[in-house]
Structure formats: C-alpha cells, structure tokens
C-alpha cells in the first residue's frame, strides 16, 4: 500500500505522541499540578484551586534533606553492589559450557517471576530471628543469640539487591558475551597475568555495559520501597516510603506529589552527574 506523500510527518507521529502524552506524561503533569496545590485544611487531601511552591520547602526543612541524601546513598549502594554481584556472577559462569550458563541464568531470572511481596515474605523468614541463617550461626556457635539481619539497613539493602541482581546480571552477561575471548588469549600471550587481563581487557571492554546497568539499577534504587519498608527500620525511610506515607497514611497529596517530582528530577539528573564524574575519573586514570 502506497502512503500518501501529502501527509505531513507530524500527522504520522500523532498516534505515538497521543500515547506518550496521555499514557505516560499526563500522570507527571497531574503530579506537577498536585505539588503546587496547598495541603488540605481539615478535610480532603488538598485544597483545590490554590497555587503555592511552599511544598518544595520539604527539601530544606525537617527530615526532607536527610531523606533525600539517604535515598541517593541507598540507591548508590544498591546499584553498585548489584552490579558487582552481577559482574562477579557472570565472570564465574562465562567459562562454563553454554548449557550450564543457561541453567544458572534461568535460575537467577526465575526470581523475577515471583511476586515481590512473596520474595519479601521469604526474605523475612530467612533473615528473621528464627530463620535458617540465625539457626546456623547459633548452631556453629558463631553467636549466642539471633543476630538482627533485618529491620535495619542491611535488610533493606539485601532485599533491593535481591530484586535488582537478576536484571544487572542479565545485562552484564550480554555485554560480556560481546567480548571476543581471543583478546584474553592474545593478552596472555603478550605476557599479561590473569589479573592484568581482567583489569586491562575485560573490565574496560565491559565498562559500557556496567555503566548502563548501573544507571538503570540506580534509578530503580532511587525508587526503593519494599525493601526499606518491610526489611528496613523507620530511619531507613526513602523518598518512595515518604510518598507512600504522605499519600496513604497522612493524606497530604501535595507533599506526596512534591516528593514524586523530586524523585523524578533526581532520577534524571543524578545518574547523569555521576556517570560524567565516573567518565572523567576513568579518562584521568587511563592517561
């Protein structure tokens, strides 16, 4: 079928634009508007027909700055540890036969098919006072009583790494399979040790994949919710927890929306800043 050449390009892009505007961008626009409304007086969740920027003061007052910084640090921890785990896992399996590689990757990815709440429940049981880890620690007399493995920072971190590790592993694995293994053989022949091959060949060649993965997981980490909520303690509250708190517990939608805007903004800006910083460091080191 011939396309009518008189149709302007913007007409052709209209269906896609409609989906983007109404399907994806409209909640953001709604959130922006909501963030500029005044909090509720006595009833309701906001004061309709008002306009204010006072809600953004949460960035400078009370627990706002702390929550913001804690969320960024938590996201850096989650993304970095998840990438390290994925990278090590891939390095370990890449020398195995294709069959074993598929088995290991499938086993890892299967966790993504399970409901996150089920995983949280499972982790609560495993990390709990009477869970298998504590039972083993006590059995081998490594400690006298149960160690607190959850309701703290470690618990929250473990849960989020559990959620993100399959994704990081898969992306890093795809990047590693792109590396020609003959380069390692050549490097060895030129006199490089295994560590030198890793540092000078494997690591730099997988760098683009690592950075891409890190960025994806970092954004995921900024939105961490289930881990901090169920396996962390109240002081581990992230922006997502704060949004949940404002929308569903306090009933202050403008402040919840403001946190949403802040989260979206830092999701766009921080990875860019950090990646640029890492690139500069890398360039400086490679010189």
């Amino acid at each position, binding site marked *: 079928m011939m396309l009518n050449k008189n149709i302007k390009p913007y007409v052709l892009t209209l269906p896609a634009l409609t989906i983007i505007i109404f399907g994806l961008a409209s909640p953001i626009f709604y959130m922006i508007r909501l963030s500029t409304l005044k909090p509720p007086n006595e009833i309701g969740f906001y004061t309709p027909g008002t306009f204010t920027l006072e809600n953004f003061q949460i960035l400078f007052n009370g627990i706002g700055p702390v929550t913001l910084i804690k969320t960024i640090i938590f996201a850096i921890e989650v993304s970095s540890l998840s990438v390290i785990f994925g990278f090590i896992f891939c390095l370990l399996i890449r020398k195995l036969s294709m069959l074993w590689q598929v088995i290991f990757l499938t086993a890892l990815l299967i966790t993504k098919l399970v409901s996150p709440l089920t995983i949280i429940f499972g982790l609560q049981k495993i990390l709990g006072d009477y869970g298998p880890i504590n039972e083993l620690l006590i059995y081998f007399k490594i400690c006298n009583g149960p160690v607190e493995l959850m309701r703290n920072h470690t618990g929250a971190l473990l849960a989020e790494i559990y959620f993100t590790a399959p994704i990081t592993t898969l992306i890093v694995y795809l990047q590693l399979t792109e590396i*020609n293994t*003959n*380069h390692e*053989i*050549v*490097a*060895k*022949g*030129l*006199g*490089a*040790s295994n560590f*030198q091959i890793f540092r*000078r*060949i494997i690591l*730099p*060649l997988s*760098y683009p994949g690592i950075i891409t993965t890190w960025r994806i997981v970092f954004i995921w980490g900024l939105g961490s919710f289930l881990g901090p909520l169920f396996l962390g303690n109240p002081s581990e509250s992230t922006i997502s927890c704060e949004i949940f708190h404002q929308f569903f517990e306090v009933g202050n939608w403008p402040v919840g929306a403001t946190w949403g805007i802040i989260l979206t903004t830092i999701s766009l800006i921080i990875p860019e800043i950090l990646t640029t910083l890492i690139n500069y460091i890398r360039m400086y080191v490679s010189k």
Partner: protein
Amino acid sequence: MTNKTKIKLENISYSYAGNKAVENLSFSLPTGKYLTILGPSGCGKTTILKMIGGYLYPTKGKIYIDDKNVTEMDSCSRKIGMVFQNYLLFPHLSARKNISFPLEIRHQPKNDREKKVDEISELVGLTKKEIERKPSELSGGQQQRVALARALIFEPQLLLLDEPLANLDKELKTQLLNEIRNLQKTIKVTTIMVTHDHEEALSGSDLIGIMNQGKLLQIDEPKIIYEKPSCSLIANHFGQANILPAKYFGLKNDATVLIRPEKIKINLNAINCTWKNQGKISSILFMGSHLLINLMLYDGTELKLLTSDSYPFAVDSIITIGIDIENVWLIPETI
C-alpha cells in the same frame, strides 16, 4: 651463532576431541631463520603455531626453545610474539596503547615505553598520526602493522605469524610481505609464519615446511622444495609440474619423476640434451613474460613447457624437445 637451534619440536601430536590435528611432527629451526609452514586449510598448521605459542598444549611430544623444554610452560611466560589472522587488536585501546601493551604489563617506565613505541612504529611504517587512532579507524594494512609492532615491541625470542596477510588484497599483501621479511632480517628474530598461499611461502622464506593432514611432508629451502619435492603432492602444489613414470627416462623402477616445465628445452636448445623427443603443440597459453605450451608426444604423453622464447609457436605445429637427465627428479615418496 646463527646455526644454533632456536626451536625444536620433537614428535608433537595434538588431537581435538579425538581427531588428530597434528601427528608425530618434528622439526628444528636455527636462530634468526624465517620458516613458512604451508598447507591447505585444516591441515594443522595453526595448531602447531598455537602449541609453540603456548595457547595449546601438545597431547604428545616436546617443544624446546633455546634447548629449554617449554612444553608445559604458560603462553605468558614464553616471551613469544604472535600476530593472528584477524590481528585481534584491543578495540578499546589506541594503536599506541595496543603497541605499548606488552611493555605496560611489564611495568616499564612511561618514557622508555613511548620511545620504544615510536621506534617500532617507524620500523613497521606507521605514522605518528596513525598510532593515535583506535583500531576501528585504521585500514586492514595499518591494523596488520600495529599487530606486528605489538608482537615485536617486547623483543620476543620468537615471532609467530598466523596467516597475517589473509585479509589483505594482493598488492598490499606483496608489499607487506616484503616489509615483514625486511623487518625480520633487520631485527634478526626467528620467525614462523603459516599460510595456505604458496606464493607467500616462496617470497623470501629461508625454509618452507609443507603440511598435509596433520603431517609435515617436507621442510627445506624453497629452491629445494621446488626442484626436489619429497612427494608428488608438493610437486603439484608449487607451480607447473610434469609428473611421469620413471621408466620413461630409462630409470628401471616403478617410481615417478618430476620435470619442471621450464627445464624442458625446445628445438635448437634441445640438441645437446640427453633425452629428446618430438610432439605436437595442443595449446598455447600467454602468461605475460612467458608462454605455457601443452605438448602431446607421439606416444600420447602430455607435457607442459614454459618458454620465454620469441619463436612464433603455433598450435598443431611439431617441435623437438629435450631434457637433461640432471633436471629429472625421482620423487622419493614413489621409490
């Protein structure tokens, strides 16, 4: 000094999943010599190179370098430079970094490294601008030069070239082959190259080793390989060959002999030859500097002749040919 053996292979065998790739192969190469191993694809020549380089371990036999048994030694400890067929330059590093890689991992000071890179780059014909580029920004010939420089910069005791010119066009191939040979003579590094192209093998190699189905058929100087091949396979592989029964020349056995077409004399030149005959020209092929004549003798035997004679040969004309008996090579394999 040059006669000292640099590398010796003793009854080397290698099998890939039960299939013998190399079988009971032995040879030695004196220091500073340039050996070309020639053979068809899959004959095991790259396997030999990989075993020498330490990338594969022989299933049987021993490898000695400077009289030291290196059979079990790791590739990184052998100090052997190798240029692979696809060059395998590190894509994330500039040509300069690729070349200096062996020195960097040996923790040589930066100034020394830079100086050496500049020297070797000049030697292999790379400009200062070219060595700052990434491999993807270089042509095939330039990549080949970078790979060569990388293999030579750490002064290897042995240089291995695995079909290094296979991906280049004919003109560039000839040019680079000459450059490699000159470079090898300049730095006097013992070199082993493998190729399936007999023209490459004949171009300046000190020695040629002929391989087929995992076996080394003959290893000798190019002139000897050409004139006195050990089997008819080699005789046919190198240029035009007339392979005839030995009894044709009065040699009383069932062997076969080789007569190179250019050794057959024609008409007046044939008068003093020990063996003479007449035949009819069945075809003439113009080869530029010479003619390839197919001749049918009266007894039905076909012969190929190469001549640069300006005589106006014509198809179906009768000519006299003569062969000196010293130019008849009794092929050992058939004795």
